[in-house]
């Protein structure tokens, strides 16, 4: 197979995967935080919060990701005019568009992936014996402290491995960002398909292997991490 396209200056193979990694990193960070907040809402004693958490998760996780990303770009940024980057007059708008689209994509991934983080964390909460919360309440901790200091740390440790799967799914899902002009690995693949149609098996293999190189260690790492921090009872 001819892999010469990997060093062809017209294609920035490493740059495209670097974009995939950046999308994944910021989305994972945001999705973790929002997911934990949603999980906290879903076990909150306040009915309004519980209702919001439940409704959010059940609506958002059932919308195809492509739809969410396109809505971010067309509706949220286009029609409603949300600006996530500064557009300077007189300057080539490409820089603005790149930042804007990147951030819109990250926001879309966060909103979507958080629902899966929430459900993983919630199943983790179910593994924490009720006595833990009782003991925490009995020493005078408030609800937010009970959750933040006693329940969530144990719940999250119990679901490190499933969270690893959520992260792997997220990394592969970032390919959807090419739909709104973010030049990541899938966008590069499309370019290969257009320009290097004759090298199809090689280009395909290069992209696939690129993803496996990123995701395989994550699976192994999270598996080992889960064993290390798992709470013994």
């Amino acid at each position, binding site marked *: 197979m001819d892999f010469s396209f990997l060093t062809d200056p017209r294609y920035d193979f490493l740059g495209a995967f670097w974009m995939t990694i950046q999308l994944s990193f910021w989305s994972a960070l945001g999705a973790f935080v929002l997911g934990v907040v949603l999980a906290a809402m879903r076990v909150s004693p306040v009915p309004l919060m519980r209702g919001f958490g439940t409704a959010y998760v059940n609506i958002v996780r059932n919308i195809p990701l492509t739809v969410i990303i396109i809505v971010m770009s067309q509706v949220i940024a286009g029609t409603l005019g949300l600006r996530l980057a500064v557009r300077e007059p007189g300057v080539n708008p490409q820089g603005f568009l790149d930042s804007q689209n990147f951030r819109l994509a990250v926001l879309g991934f966060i909103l979507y992936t958080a629902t899966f983080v929430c459900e993983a964390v919630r199943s983790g909460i179910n593994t924490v014996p009720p006595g833990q919360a009782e003991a925490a309440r009995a*020493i005078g901790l408030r609800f937010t402290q009970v959750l933040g200091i006693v329940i969530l740390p144990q719940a999250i440790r119990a679901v490190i491995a499933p969270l690893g799967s959520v992260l792997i799914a997220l990394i592969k899902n970032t390919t959807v960002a090419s739909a709104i002009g973010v030049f990541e690995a899938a966008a590069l693949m499309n370019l290969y398909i257009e320009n290097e149609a004759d090298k199809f098996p090689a280009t395909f293999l290069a992209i696939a292997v690129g993803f496996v190189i990123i995701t395989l260690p994550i699976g192994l790492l999270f598996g080992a991490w889960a064993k290390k921090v798992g709470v013994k009872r």
Partner: protein
Amino acid sequence: MIEMRDVQKHFGALHVLKDINLSIPAGQVTIVLGPSGSGKSTLCRTINRLEPIDSGTIAVDGTVLPAEGKELAQLRADVGMVFQSFNLFAHKSILDNVTLGPIKVRRMNKAEAEKLGMSLLERVGIASQKDKLPAQLSGGQQQRVAIARALAMRPKVMLFDEPTSALDPEMVNEVLDVMTSLAREGMTMLVVTHEMGFARRAGDRVLFMADGEIVEDAPPEQFFTDPKSARAKDFLSKILTH
């Protein structure tokens, strides 16, 4: 120290606490006895509102417990609770288990909390295990840590809900010894237990519960030698024969 007035509690259709009136003066050690399902745990749990009540009032040291919220959390801190299943925070070290409340609830600084924590662990004989996790300790050791954790809040009252029932027999005494010394020092205690030796040795008063009611209220010697009600006689005959 504890005043319960006309307290009623239902679980659905089940009437678990029937018109409880109870006054426990400071320094008294009250033993709660009764068959399984008679409402002993529920009684304990209502005193620091882990379980809400339907009606009536419960006051601790003159302050009536509010329904929920910040003030309740503060008042709970004054009531120490020791559970049958220890309930040590599984992800925290032994020392952290003891210092968590003083730091987060009493706003004590870390150094001071650790000094207090170590002195309490010393007292219950677990100081050398301070860096271990709860799962690495035996049941008896875990329960002693749980007592230290409750004491770290400098509680006005200590509630014990069958603190030795989940322990292997050889570990029961190490926990009872700690409780006996607490009783000697004048701690106000409410203890649900079937340990008759402890009840006689450390108890000032026995409450016998059946079907959600306090059926007898007597000094230990009198209760054990001369129970008044048929249900108490029946209960004693069952637990004293083995």
